[in-house]
């Protein structure tokens, strides 16, 4: 039985990914994380009935709690095969309106938590090999006036993911990074409130790509930023 950890699983791409993976790989163990337990339970209801699903409500900006949780998972199950970091935070403001607290929270959730989750998971994953996938954004690739905290945190995530691909290679750990473009999520609503979500890419389409990457089809696609974008 393989062990998956999926963050941001209460909604959007994280929720769709958890559902998709459980249907593609029933019988595995899925530990799904987000702040809101009731929403995690909703995700669990939509996952494959033969999958073992454990819901863990957690605030990823609290590094001590993240460390404790991953160590307890590793100790209890003896392995962590897949770590899928989807959770994201955004509070778009212009430079002059961005508070230090906003900037810190954005970086805590979008990059610091990924570093902590990765470091802790790799301590177990290095014994068996595995796959780590980080969901960045096309916002991490170019100038985004008004989103500087978010876009620069995603740029950091892309760089971190590529470095991990090299640094963890000898362990048999593959590191992936995908950068979705406009996708109909709650986070997107904050960035583009006027946009009609039905006209853009859906979270399920990103989840399809992630599930492919986590399978054998993805074995030669690690270490590079994969852009997932609906062409108009």
């Amino acid at each position, binding site marked *: 039985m393989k062990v998956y950890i999926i963050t941001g699983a209460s909604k959007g791409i994280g929720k769709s990914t958890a559902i998709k993976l459980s249907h593609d790989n029933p019988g595995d163990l899925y530990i799904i994380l987000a702040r809101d337990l009731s929403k995690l339970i909703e995700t669990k209801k939509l996952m494959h009935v033969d999958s073992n699903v454990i819901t863990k409500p957690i605030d990823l900006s609290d590094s001590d709690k993240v460390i404790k949780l991953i160590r307890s998972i590793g100790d209890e199950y003896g392995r962590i095969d897949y770590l899928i970091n989807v959770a994201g935070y955004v509070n778009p403001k212009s430079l002059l309106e961005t508070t230090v607290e906003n900037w810190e929270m954005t970086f805590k959730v979008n990059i610091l938590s990924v570093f902590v989750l990765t470091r802790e998971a790799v*301590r*177990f994953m*290095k*014994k068996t090999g595995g796959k780590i996938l980080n969901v960045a954004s096309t916002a991490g690739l170019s100038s985004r006036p008004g989103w500087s905290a978010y876009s620069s945190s995603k740029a950091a995530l892309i760089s971190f993911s590529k*470095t991990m691909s*090299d*640094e963890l*290679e*000898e362990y048999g750990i593959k590191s992936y990074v995908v950068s979705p473009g406009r996708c109909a999520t709650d986070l997107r609503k904050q960035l583009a409130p006027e946009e009609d979500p039905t006209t853009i890419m859906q979270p399920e389409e990103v989840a399809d790509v992630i599930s492919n990457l986590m399978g054998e089809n993805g074995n030669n696609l690690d270490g590079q930023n994969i852009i997932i974008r609906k062409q108009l």
Partner: protein
Amino acid sequence: MKKHSLLLLSGGIGTRMQQDIPKQHLLLFGRPIIIHTLERVDKIEEIGEIIITCPKQYIEELENMIINYNLNKSIKIIQGGNTRQESVFKGLTEINNNSVIIHEAARPFVKLADFENLINSEYSNISYGLDIPFTVLKKKDDYISENLNRSELVNIQLPQKFNAEELKQAHIKAKEEGTTFTEDASLLLKYSNSKVNIINGSDYNIKITTPVDYKIAEIIYKDYILNEI
């Protein structure tokens, strides 16, 4: 299953590398050089324990490093001696198996199979060695004094495996006589009747000693360990 002890010599203090930190603590492709060996050995069931000899001032740093890398083996770190020979002897007094494999932390390009070849060998005393592709002559003062037939010479490489008790007794005799050796096959040859078998080593298994070695280390890692080049 017969268990072996690994004696890992980690005595460098960085002088020849012109660094403030010992070379075996420098990063090679993201991880300290000494960790490369420890992580590979961690997968070998036949190695029952690891003794690391290290300068006193680096023991705590090394202990923390080992915790961070979540290694499974029983690892004991002891203070090394003033010389390599002293460090080996101190290590030999700590081991709990009849067979010891000696390796140097500054040789990170040792593969799992290199250790397994020693473990599976029928010989109790065995060392990796390479032919010498260049000419070595003896000198006296500033003059060449004697020719050496290179076909009779061997470039000794670590790791090496020894009968621990035989090697320990040989060390005791060397200590009594005050003789010094730069590695243990020659010491054992001098002070015991045991033969030391030679197994073919690898050009890649270099000891990182100078800044040049460190510069080429990443290329060797990618080519030889990751098979990427």
